[in-house]
């Protein structure tokens, strides 16, 4: 399936993992952004804890925001190569801003010692 095809959004796109062009997991489709008024079209995939707003009860979202912040990264829909059991991107996650938390965490991990 490609982003131009007809898709049942909730069952087939929402909450799917994102895999970048290097085969690395780089997020989950936490929400979807549309464009247009009469005929809705997909604009971007929203990734990050901020996109949980409206999808979980308000007190729980408050907790999520306290713990993980309310960051949202928008992945333009034209960066999506295919939609199947995962959403494959046609670029590295870094290009669309998806690797920031992973990179930040990486600073805490010592290099070496692993086979």
């Amino acid at each position: 399936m490609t982003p131009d095809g007809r898709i049942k959004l909730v069952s087939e796109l929402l909450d799917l993992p994102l895999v970048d062009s290097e085969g690395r997991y780089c997020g989950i489709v936490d929400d979807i952004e549309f464009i247009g008024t009469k005929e809705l079209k997909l604009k971007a995939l929203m990734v990050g804890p901020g996109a949980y707003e409206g999808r979980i009860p308000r007190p729980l979202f408050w907790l999520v925001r306290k713990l993980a912040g309310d960051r949202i990264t928008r992945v333009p829909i034209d960066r999506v190569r295919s939609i199947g059991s995962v959403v494959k991107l046609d670029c590295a996650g870094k290009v669309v801003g998806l690797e920031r938390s992973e990179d930040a965490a990486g600073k805490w991990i010592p290099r070496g010692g692993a086979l």
Partner: protein
Amino acid sequence: MNPLELTLGIMTAVGGFVDISELVFAAKAGSTFGYALIWVFAFSTVGIIVFSEMSGRVAAVAKQPVFNLVRHRLGLQLGLLTLVASIISNLITCAAEIGGLSLILNYLTGAPYFLMAPVATLVIVISIWILPFKWIERVYGLLGLFMITFAVALIAIHPPWSEVAGGFVPHIPHGLNTKELLTFGYFCVAIVSAVMFPYEVYFYSSGGIEEEWGPKDLLTNRITSIVGMGLGSLLAISILASSAQFFGPAYVDPEIPGSTALQAAIPFGKWGLILALLGMFFAVAGAAVETCMANAYSIAQFFGWRWGRHKKPWEAPRFTIAWIALFVVALSIVLTGVDVMILVELAILFSILVLPLSYLPLLLLAGDRQYMREHANGSIAKGLGWFYFGVITAAALAAIPLYLLTAGGSG
């Protein structure tokens, strides 16, 4: 199919089957009800085989581990609930395994329990850091084969084999009063929970992805699940049968893992005891690794982080921080001084509550022809899957009332 890989896979599954909860509940079940609960172990083993095979197949064909499915199939809200519940369940289980390890090290070396807990945790953390996935799984699984001592010990004491065989036939012992019936029911639920722990499926399916399984590995997956887990279950049944033979008639309640090890000491003396303790040590250490890694896999898969021990620890940093932090939390629970047996009972209780939520998405996806194509569940897998889903749902509903009514199986 590589025969060496298959043999190693089966042996790993056998050695990795038993954990602290099975050690405790098998021994207690044997001493309390004789051979009457053997069929529950056998019945639950078929259940874990069904779901493990399914999770391995989904990993090989749809390339999806369990927690990706949980989120996609149950949605964010219910998925989050499942994630939190399974984190709590696996964390308590991991703490129980670390506590069990510390007890076993205390028996083996005489060193203080509270010193052994951080030492054991540190050794495990270092081994996970150093070893790639396949070797983590194999080192603990293969060394866990020392557990075969229990099966050999059972053969050596010449149990009444007809009565042992009779235990495989589903039945409820005659003449139990209401209180004993409730206790029997609690043991049934506890054994189903201990054998079908959700972490086993999270770990197994994530392992399939770590090892880059594809459709060519489906036969290996099926044989490993059936033979490996089937033989692993026989080790747990050996403990139950020895307990029925030794402890039941002597009115001994094998409350602590040390009592279970004595089963091998009776026929084989000191060396039997040492081999049994070594088997228990590696089996329980393997389970500690699996529970903690299963938790880290779940969190990483749910939030779409990079994950896996096929990567170097710094290549999947959030995943690495997660499993180290989870070990630290589990160790902290042990260091509060809470009784290991209480942790085991809580682990059993939480796990059974999580089981239906964990296995439902797996069952749905394994039957979905859009993802699984010709490898979707056939009529046998579908029938068994839904039957066991009904069983674990009923067990989940009964677990808390039975726990409260029987004071955790104490009657």
